[in-house]
Structure formats: structure tokens, C-alpha cells
């Protein structure tokens, strides 16, 4: 019961945010009622809308589930963007390398490649933090920048579609990747694909990892008290590295799903990471916070945020309001969620635990 009440608080925050959104609609002369209807219809109105919402929620959920793991170990991962890109790149290369494998092998293979790519992109800042006391907030953000450049370089050069070179248009994108790697559609006529189910499974897996496995036990122990963990013989440095690697691998999986669940079935860049990820690397953090940093609560939370994204597109189309309004609405929800008491308390707790971890990593050699 207490859990339920606590869960309702961010919902209230979201409601207030929507009220403010309604006021904004009034301010620009649109009907807030129509606006709300357009938003909800666009997000959850019919099977198709629901499918799009689910697809939009998928990378948020994966990144969010990864964030819950990192947070529980008292590390933060702002590198979701870079990890998504890393996973996408590695899985793309695998699909280019062995395009003719049967789907039953190739689909799992590209997904695993995504996990590995993101895992590496997470392990690097993790190891830097654990063994060289490099602040993971800075290193993950930096790695985001590096990964964008790597993506741009690869898509403009080594991995570019040969047709683009032939035609001289040189759009930075890969060729259409093997259909054997495409994630199968679950409901014909909609965009709902296997990736959605995989994200749900991943969230459940994150829960199982944290609360049902020895590894998760260690991550949480380190997150709660690195000193006590160390004295009990738990390897704090290894655990810190593992937390970021696992968190990153879920981002990488999202990257693979973005590529092989897309209609284009290829990787394209507009020069920015958001152009490819839709900022899921950042929004996933908010979804996780909104879900109380619990992997299972992150599921509805991600769907809500996914709905906001699809609904806003519809709102824009129906009411002819500027796209900026949707962005602003999203921003307001974020601000309210992050400043709601429970989330703030969590963040404060986290900050102090993180300081403990940093201190523990600096002295001991475990």
C-alpha cells in the first residue's frame, strides 16, 4: 500500500505538468481539451497508436532498466547516447559481415553484438572510475561525443552505402541491411516488433539480476555501503565496472533494436546522436527516475514517456501548434518528475552514497 502511494506521487507531478501544458495551449489560442484529446488519441487511441508508443518506449525502457542497475550500485550513467550508438554500430557491422546467415541465427547475433558494443562503451568509463578514479559523469558524457564522431566517420566512410558513392549523393548511411537480421513484426499492419518484447524481458531480467542473483546482490551491497561490502570480501572495483558495463549493454541493445526494428533497416546519421537515438539515452534516465529507479516500474513509466512522444506528434498535426510546444511539454514533465519529493530524496541519497563509493574506490585495493 505504501508502495502504491509512493508510486502515485510522480503521477501527480505529471498531472501538474499536463495542467501547465494546457495553460500553454490556452495561451497560444488552442483548445486545451482538444489538445489533450489529440495527445491521448495519438498515444493510445488505437492499436496502431499503441504499437508506435510501444516502439518509442522500447529504447527508453532499455536505457532506463540499465540506469536502475547503475544507480543501485551508486554509479550514474549519462552515456546512454554513446552506448546506443556503439551497440548499433557493432550490430550493423555484424549484419554487414555475415548477411546471409539465416534469421534464426542472425537476429540473436545482431542483438548480442548490440549488447557487447554497448557493454564495451559502458565498461570503459566503469573501469576508468574503478581503477583510476575518473568521474563517470564526465567520462560517459565525453564518450557520447566520441561515439558520435565515430558513427559519423564510419557512416561517411568505411560503412557508407556503395550506391551513395556511385550516385555521388554521399548521404551518410549504410546500405539496406540483410532482411535476415530484421526484427520480426508481431502484429501485421502495425510497427510492433520483437524489440518491444525484448525490452520487456530485459526490464524483468534487470529486476532478476538485482534481486535474485549473487552479482546483483554484490552491486546493491556496493551501492549501499562500499565499506561494508569491502570488509565482507566483495570486490568493489570489479562491481563498479560491471554495473556500468551492464548498464551500457542495455543501451547497446537498444541501439541494435533501433537499427533492426526500423523501417529503413539501416543506420543513418544526421551528424548528431539525437538524430539516431531520439535522445533515448537521456530520456531513459528520466523514465527510470519516474519509475522510482525500479526496473519493473520503469516499464509503465517508459510507456508513458513513449506515449508523450507519439501523442505530441499527433498534437502538433491536429492542432497545428508549433513543434516546440511538444518539446516544452516533455521538458515540463521532466522538471516536475525530477523535482518531486520522492525522486529528489532518492537523488540526494544517491549523491551521498556515490561520494562514499568514490572514497572507497580511492583508498582500498579491492
Amino acid at each position, binding site marked *: 500500500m505504501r508502495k502504491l502511494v509512493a508510486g502515485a506521487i510522480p503521477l501527480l507531478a505529471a498531472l501538474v505538468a499536463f495542467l501547465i501544458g494546457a495553460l500553454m495551449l490556452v495561451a497560444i489560442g488552442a483548445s486545451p481539451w482538444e489538445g489533450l484529446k489529440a495527445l491521448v488519441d495519438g498515444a493510445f487511441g488505437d492499436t496502431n497508436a499503441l504499437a508506435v508508443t510501444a516502439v518509442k518506449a522500447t529504447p527508453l525502457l532499455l536505457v532506463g532498466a540499465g540506469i536502475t542497475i547503475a544507480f543501485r550500485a551508486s554509479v550514474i550513467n549519462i552515456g546512454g547516447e554513446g552506448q546506443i550508438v556503439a551497440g548499433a554500430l557493432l550490430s550493423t557491422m555484424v549484419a554487414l559481415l555475415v548477411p546471409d546467415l539465416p534469421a534464426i541465427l542472425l537476429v540473436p547475433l545482431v542483438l548480442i553484438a548490440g549488447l557487447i558494443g554497448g557493454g564495451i562503451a559502458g565498461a570503459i568509463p566503469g573501469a576508468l572510475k574503478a581503477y583510476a578514479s575518473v568521474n563517470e559523469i564526465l567520462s560517459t558524457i565525453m564518450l557520447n561525443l566520441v561515439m558520435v564522431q565515430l558513427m559519423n566517420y564510419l557512416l561517411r566512410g568505411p560503412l557508407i552505402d556503395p550506391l551513395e558513392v556511385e550516385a555521388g549523393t554521399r548521404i551518410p548511411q549504410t546500405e539496406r541491411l540483410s532482411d535476415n537480421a530484421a526484427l520480426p513484426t508481431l502484429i501485421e499492419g502495425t510497427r510492433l516488433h520483437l524489440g518491444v518484447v525484448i525490452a520487456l524481458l530485459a526490464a524483468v531480467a534487470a529486476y532478476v539480476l538485482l534481486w535474485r542473483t549473487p552479482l546483483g*546482490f*554484490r552491486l546493491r*551491497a556496493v551501492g*549501499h*555501503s562500499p565499506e561494508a561490502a569491502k*570488509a565482507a*570480501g566483495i570486490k568493489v572495483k570489479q562491481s563498479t565496472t560491471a554495473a556500468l558495463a551492464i548498464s551500457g549493454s542495455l543501451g547497446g541493445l537498444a541501439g541494435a533494436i533501433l537499427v533492426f526494428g526500423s523501417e529503413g533497416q539501416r543506420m543513418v546519421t544526421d551528424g548528431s546522436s539525437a538524430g539516431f537515438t531520439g535522445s533515448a539515452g537521456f530520456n531513459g534516465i528520466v523514465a527510470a527516475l519516474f519509475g522510482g529507479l525500479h526496473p519493473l516500474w520503469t516499464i509503465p513509466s517508459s510507456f508513458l514517456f513513449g506515449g508523450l512522444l507519439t501523442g505530441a506528434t499527433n498534437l502538433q498535426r491536429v492542432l497545428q501548434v508549433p513543434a516546440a510546444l511538444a518539446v516544452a511539454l516533455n521538458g515540463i514533465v521532466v522538471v516536475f518528475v525530477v523535482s518531486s519529493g520522492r525522486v529528489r530524496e532518492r537523488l540526494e541519497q544517491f549523491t551521498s552514497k556515490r561520494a562514499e563509493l568514490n572514497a572507497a574506490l580511492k583508498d582500498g585495493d579491492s
Partner: protein
Amino acid sequence: MTPPPPQTGPPLLEMRGITKRFPGVIANQDVDFDVRAGEVHTLLGENGAGKSTLMKILFGLYQPEEGEVLLRGEPIDITSPSEAIDARVGMVHQHFMLVPTMTVAENVALGIKSDRGPLTDLDAVSERIREISEAHGLAVDPDVEVWRLSVGERQRIEIVKALFRDAELLVLDEPTAVLTPQEVDDLFVILRRMTEEGRGIIFISHKLHEVMALSDRITVLRNGRVTGHTVPAETSRENLAEMMVGRAVKLSPHRPDVTPGAPRLKIRGLSVVGDRGTRAVDQVDLDVFGGEILGIAGVSGNGQRELAEVVAGLRKPEPGTSIELDGQAIDSASTRERRDLGLSYVPEERMRDGAIGDFTVSENIILVDHGSEKFSASGLLNFGAIKDHCNKLVEQFAVKTPSIETPTSSLSGGNIQKVIMARELSAGPAVLIASQPTRGVDIGSAEYIHERLVEQRDRGTATLLISEDLDEVLGLSDRIAVMFEGRVVAIVDHDDATREGIGLLMAGVFDEEPATT
């Protein structure tokens, strides 16, 4: 023991019918307590009995729901510590109220009104501190920052702080916990001198022999109520313990004779640099045999903590250190590897290093062994086995907890320590390092923990017992090593050990030729 001075006029302090409730507990219930000028009135009781609460009421930190306070016969309403200080009530708190980043002098000067307006003359403060510490034999350096000081040194500053304010009624809340017997004796001399000057002293303790030695009168509290008044001449330690606990208590556990076997822990040339950048442990050699408890006596801050952490693998020793566990060199092994070889460790800082407050009791019990085959199968924790194991241990170690799923931080200190002991002893360790195993623990739990330590010794464990409580060390150890300034200055057999002898060694009084194993 000087008899209480003849009563002239009203008592210095009278507290009548004090009742104070906290959510779910009555910390004080209808408590009467008085102090005459020139006497030491001891408040005796277990942890949680309500001693500190009563004193905090006196000091203006809490307001009682019922009852009244009279100072020098006049009713007085003390609503803040500064009012208490103005009324010349001085308090040495159990939990030090010091700002770690400031110097000793700055801490003492805090809150003192200066003749020179807003600026306090720190040099003058330092000078007075030096005078006071000289006069009372309390070694403190006024210019050192508090964070650099050990627990024992901090306590001394609290005493100096109260002396600095020239309190007429002085409250000492468990002041002796971290002092050597010599320091305790010195303190008692100071306190006696203060009573002769006509001051009244409230002395809070649960150390029975100290209470017997110092008090003019004794009031015993249990669960917030006064359970007895007495004077030392008419009571005994056993008697007092019974009043405190409410039942008969064994004061020192039975120690059957066990012949020690081969040395299970062998330490040679152990040196380590401490947090302050100086050598905290200097060339220590120790052998701990199976079936014995080797007690380490010493004032805190003489290298005991660092020694324990090095053996546990949590702190790197200097090159040249060699540690063997059952003949295997472990000096470069990780904590995990040492534990796998049979090392158990009960850390000094229970809530920081010993247990995770946010974890449940069962999670803390499996903190070390969660990855073993016993508790996990094919990558998943085996909750059935964990539950059985934890329920068994909670029962075996008499841990008072609503369930094994209760967050550990909501347990009392004694029960948290039992959880840690249960975890560390359940595997039947080859070597056990127990640091301050009963500090801040209620008598009942302490008694229980002592029995367990002895039982484990009888099973062949080599135990290194580190404690500031000399009674504990004397009561449990087969041999006693005394540490002073990072060195083992003597190793004494249980039968040859006396409080006075060990106390002198702890204070650094010994022949230049340190004893050997």
C-alpha cells in the same frame, strides 16, 4: 570512599517526577533524581535505559512532558543548552559534539561569549586549554584539528570544554569508555577534586567496577524507570547488574582450559602507515594459536584498528610484512581470498564496515557467503536455503528482530552486532579478528557475544580480540598483548595479568626492552 558530605541547604539539583516520551517509547517515567553539592551521583543503566534522555532534559535539549527541575532550590525552566551553561551546568556528551574541521581551541571557543566582542581571542583560549589540560593531566593540543584525533582524544576535549566553562554541576555521559585505567584513575582524581571544591557531579556509566569506585550514591534506571537507589558500601557488582538487567547475570564467562595447538595466524614485521601519514603500526610480531584468544589491550589510536585492517586485507602494509594463515602466506591475498581460507572479521565500526543498514537481516547474514554453492544455484540466489540458514542463525544467536526481512538499521546496536557475529562465526573460522565486539552493546548481548567467542575458541579458532574495554580483554584472553604507539610493548599471560600492570603498559610505562612472544 568519602561519605557524602552533610546536607546543608537545598540540593544543587533536583529533578522531580520527570516523564519524557518518544514515539513508541517512554524514555523516562516519573524519574526522581537529585545531586548535592560535593558528591558524585551515578546514574547506572543499560543502553536505552533513558540516562542520556534525562541528562538532555537537564541540559535543555529535550523538554519533559511532566515533572520539574530545581537548581539550588529554585525551579528552573531550561530550554536550551546555552541556558544550562549560564546556570553553570556542564555536559560531556556521550556522542561528541565537536566540529571535525576546526581546531581544538576553536571547538572550545565555540559558543563562548568573549569580553572582546565578536572576536574570540583564540590564543588566550589555547593558553587556558593548556593550563586546564596541564592541571588535570588531560593531554590535549589546542592547535590540532579535531578530525586528526582519535576517539579517546576527542573525549578528553569534551571534558576540557566543560572544565573550561567552570561548570558547578558537571554531567559526564559515559566518559570513561575510551580511557585507559590510569586515565580513568586520573579522571576520578580530578572529579574528586571537583567535588571537594563543592561541585556536584553526575556520572553515567555501565561499567560496574567504576561505578563502585567513584560513586557516593547510585541510582539505577531500567526501561525509563528508577529501579533502585543505593550506595557502594551496601551493594555489589552482581547486585547492581541485577538491578540494571532485571535478572541475575554472569559477569565473566566460563573459560575451560584449552591447550593451544599450532599457530594459525602468524604475523611478522607488520608495519603500516596510517591515515595521518605516520606509522600507525611498527614492526609487530604476533602468533595466535588455535584454541586461544589473544587480546590486544591499548588506548584507541595506538594502531589496533590499522593492525586489524591489514590482517583483514583492507589496508596495505609496508613491504617486509609477512602474514600467514595456517602456514599459507596471505599478505598479498585479497580480502575475498583470505576469507576463503577461513578468516573472519568483526570490524570495529559496526554500521560502516560490519553491516549494511539498508539491507535486511538475512541479506547481512549472507553478505560474505552469498556466492557460495550453499546459497546460490545456477546463477540464482537460493532463497529457500538462505531463509532456513538465516532463521536458524537468528534463533541460535538470539537476535531480537521481528523477522529476517527487517531492515538491519532498525535493530538495536546489540542485535546488529549479533547479526554480524552470527555471520562471521557460522562458518567456523580458522582465524577470527574481533574488534570492539561489545562496544555500545547492552549487557545481555555482550554476555552472549562473550560466550560465543569463548565457544569458538574452544572449537579451535585462533581469535585476535581487540578491545578498549580492559575488563573484556582480561576476562576473555588467554594472553594479552599491549599496544602502545603502534608497537606491541608486552605480551602477558592471563594468569600474570593485572589491571594495574596492563594499565601501566597501555599508558606507555614499560621497560625499554619490549617483551617477546
